[in-house]
């Protein structure tokens, strides 16, 4: 015991102190560290090289937006890892990825298997795979270079938009790297990403209009000029099958797809034309789900994907001059409005389902369900289950009677 007290413990303490004061336990000085907050990946289609654009958090007293472009560092390499390594080599900064909460995939990546890129993020422990993942129109570098009035750092503004769904608006199909990879490796081999487009500030109408069409060839104006303030529209979703982008869901399709896994409380849906007080008008309805069921089953031995949705609706906005007693929030939506909402939701779901069938994409995870809950039938049905499964919808819209706003 005396030996322990006299020699062992002092040596132990001295050794630990030596470690602490000489090597700082292996930590790198903050001056030599680049804290990367966003990661963009593009591919040069000619050379086949990946271009990594990293946004670095630079402490600054000023809120001058022009500094945004100065905080982007790019490098090229045959693989994403090599490109990242080049950043460390050429700048002398050690890239610290622990705080990187967003990864953006440029449009050039989407035409091929995106898992070629994402495998790097799944393998490495340097970057958290809880980071938000999104795709963008144009190049990821341009998106990071945009100046936005929302924040001095573009990726922070983007994160705010992509993660707003915690407020249950259900507009953004947000996903992280882990969940995307899980979908890819599942039996369904599916995936979705929020598809981000830049929209000139004050011109956000362009963005919402893009939702009325298929979205593939439409969309908000892509503007990469540095002298303009931009905002972002991420309300549509890029859909993947076997790692490749196969289609894009419009904002309304994205919203209804989001209802599958998310709860709706403050969710809004547009109805193009309803008759209210004898006048025809577009309207914005608030929908609040009271019951939902998205499920695959066999009905008379035939595969059916069933969507049952019961929502409470309330007119939030319509271009009609109504008497004060009929105004939001006390007014009950008339039967015709509810009918129009039911038709709108049914049409949108049917159109989306058909679109997915044409793309042979199992976005609803039918193969997963078949495998997990009907395993004996899986082998015989897996190959054409997407095409042979019919959609059955039962949408019921009721007037919202609560006075809660």
């Amino acid at each position, binding site marked *: 015991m005396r030996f322990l007290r006299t020699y062992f413990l002092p040596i132990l303490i001295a050794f630990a102190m030596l470690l602490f004061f000489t*090597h700082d336990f292996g930590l*790198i000085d903050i001056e030599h560290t680049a804290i990367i907050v966003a990661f963009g990946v593009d591919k040069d289609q000619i050379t086949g090289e990946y271009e990594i654009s990293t946004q670095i958090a630079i402490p600054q007293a000023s809120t001058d937006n022009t500094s945004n472009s100065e905080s982007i560092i790019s490098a090229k390499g045959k693989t994403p890892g090599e490109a990242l390594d080049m950043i460390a080599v050429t700048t002398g900064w050690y890239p610290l990825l622990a705080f990187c909460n967003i990864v953006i995939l440029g449009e050039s990546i989407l035409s091929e298997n995106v898992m070629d890129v994402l495998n790097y993020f799944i393998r490495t*422990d340097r970057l958290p795979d*809880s980071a938000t993942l999104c795709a963008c129109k144009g190049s990821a570098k341009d998106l990071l270079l945009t100046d936005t009035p929302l924040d001095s750092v573009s990726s922070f503004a983007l994160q705010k938009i992509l993660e707003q769904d*915690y407020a249950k608006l259900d507009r953004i199909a947000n996903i992280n790297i882990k969940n995307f*990879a899980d979908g890819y490796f*599942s039996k369904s081999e599916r995936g979705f990403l929020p598809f981000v487009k830049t929209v000139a500030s004050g011109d956000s109408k362009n963005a919402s209009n893009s939702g009325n069409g298929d979205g593939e060839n439409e969309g908000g104006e892509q503007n990469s000029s540095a002298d303009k303030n931009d905002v972002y529209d991420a309300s549509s979703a890029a859909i993947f099958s076997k790692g490749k982008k196969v289609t894009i869901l419009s904002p309304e399709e994205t919203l209804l797809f989001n209802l599958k896994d998310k709860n709706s409380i403050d969710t809004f849906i547009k109805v193009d034309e309803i008759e209210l007080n004898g006048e025809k008008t577009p309207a914005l309805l608030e929908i609040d789900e009271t019951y939902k069921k998205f499920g695959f089953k066999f009905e008379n031995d035939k595969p059916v994907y069933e969507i049952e949705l019961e929502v409470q609706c309330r007119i939030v906005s319509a271009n009609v001059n109504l008497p004060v007693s009929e105004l939001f929030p006390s007014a009950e939506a008339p039967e015709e409005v509810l009918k129009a909402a039911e038709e709108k939701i049914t049409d949108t779901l049917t159109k989306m389902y058909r679109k997915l069938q044409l793309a042979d994409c199992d976005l609803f995870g039918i193969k997963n369900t078949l495998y*997990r*809950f009907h395993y004996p039938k899986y082998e015989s049905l897996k190959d054409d289950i997407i095409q042979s499964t019919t959609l059955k919808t039962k949408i019921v819209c009721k007037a919202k009677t609560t006075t809660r706003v």
Partner: protein
Amino acid sequence: MNKDKMYVRQICFLFGAFILPVKLITMPALAAKYASEDLWISAFLNFTADGAMIWFICGLAKKFEGMTVFEIAESNFGKAGKTIFSVLFFLFFMAKAYLPLIEHRNFVEISLYETTPALWIFLPIFLFAAFFSYKGLRGAGRAADIMIWFSVSGIVILAALSVSVADFSNLLPVTDVPVANILNGSLKTSLWFFDSPYMLFLLGHFKPEKKQTSKIVGAYFGFAAVAIVYMLILQCEFGTLTERQFFTPIKMGKYSVSVSNIGRIDYIAVCSIVMSCIFGVTLPLVFASVCLEKTFPFKHKITPCLITSTVAGAVIAFTEDYYFTIRNIFQECVVPFFAAFTLFPLIFIFLKNKDNGNLNDKQFKEKKECAF
């Protein structure tokens, strides 16, 4: 009379505080590699086998009441037999410590270091191991009383953070994995089990209590249930990616909405488990030191502790770069030896309690009272 007397409670906590967290680092991912969503069945089989052996050894505690395993060996096989027994189990515990020690080093590196630290940064753990060994089995019992709170709180926090993002259908279908794969999963992950020899070396080191067998075996299966639930949640959270999730404590909690809003609060749980694991990975060295102490007559008690820790440190320093190769060798070749050591106590069925057998009733009663 042996001074290293523990309470039965401390033995129960030893399973939860030290042995349980060591199994949560890489074993679940490895089980998923072979048994996919039935990883929990693989673990269940191993826990059941270990639990059965612990139950059997608890029975030996009644047969050889108050005797340590060395006393049993000496009384039946003589001094030479006891020495051989001690040497063999010294080697067993040294081998058992190898993989968890390297894993823990990597776990600390991944969790707490941004860059790869030099190996010698980890070496102080062997000084700690020497100190822990020096404190003996009673010290381990006392440490278990404290560290059980670290282990349990860490696991509960991680489970709570993970449940909100878990998809329970990831456990289905139970029937798709071939039995051979499940058994292979059990076999390949069995290196992280073989816990019953700990119980063997605790014989004679704890104060007998009423229903001690039920308490000890119940505690083992209770903590086994915790590990299995942890593995179920892991599978529900990661689905097809489970086999990639080495160092699960650092991976599990970060997807929760709470973590997105507040920050990496899961690190509180991770640090708790890191702390528990420090004791857990050095526990085999404590038992190896006990074996070494019984093999050679050392002048100072610290000497076998220092030898054990130094040897373990040196072996890891020289072989650390060959972790995967050595792990494969262990899985292919060493598992049968580990199994043999684990099943060794079955021989004790044929041994007699010569010590107590030579005593008359009065002497036996006196000895029993002394042992208490």
